[in-house]
């Protein structure tokens, strides 16, 4: 995983740095002091190396804490794992925010559209029935009027 790789790469860096700064190299730079006090030089070199390693290791831990790197690396590993089957290059922000944000809206627009289509259909059905009732009502009223006209006629 990324966390593991990160630690390994930093350790390798450290090892190689220490290997580069070998005791030979150190002694050859401080040649006269080394000739005068070889043990002391050794001791100072050992201390230098362990101090450098300790500080760098400590710093790396601090940076990992600070940036919450461990958690981020693990969650990125998961995301990458999930995308394993995806061959194509994935979508990336277009640089036109309203376009990208628009797509984020799409599912809600579609839901809203479906809702409107549903209530429109319901309302149309409701109105169809109401229209039928109105037509029936108008027929009934015409009928009653005719009945009344007939009675009236008869009495007339």
């Amino acid at each position, binding site marked *: 995983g990324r966390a593991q790789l990160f630690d390994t790469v930093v350790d390798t860096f450290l090892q190689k740095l220490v290997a580069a700064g070998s005791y030979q190299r150190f002694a050859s730079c401080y040649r006269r002091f080394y000739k005068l006090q070889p043990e002391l030089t050794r001791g100072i070199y050992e201390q230098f190396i362990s101090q450098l390693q300790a500080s760098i290791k400590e710093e790396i831990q601090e940076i990992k804490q600070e940036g919450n790197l461990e958690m981020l690396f693990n969650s990125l590993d998961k995301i990458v794992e999930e995308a394993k089957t995806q061959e194509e290059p994935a979508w990336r922000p277009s640089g036109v*925010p309203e376009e*990208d944000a628009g797509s984020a*809206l799409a599912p*809600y627009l579609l*839901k*809203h559209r479906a809702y409107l289509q549903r209530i429109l259909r319901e309302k149309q059905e409701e109105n169809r029935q109401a229209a039928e009732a109105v037509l029936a009502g108008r027929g009934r009223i015409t009928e009653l009027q005719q009945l009344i006209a007939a009675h009236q006629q008869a009495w007339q």
Partner: protein
Amino acid sequence: FDELIVETATKRKQWPKKILRHAVQTYKAEQE
């Protein structure tokens, strides 16, 4: 430049959600 990148990236991450909240509220209000 670095701050600009981080600021842009943060907006890209957070703002669609914010916009969405308002948009959903609007649709819900309209539906009500």
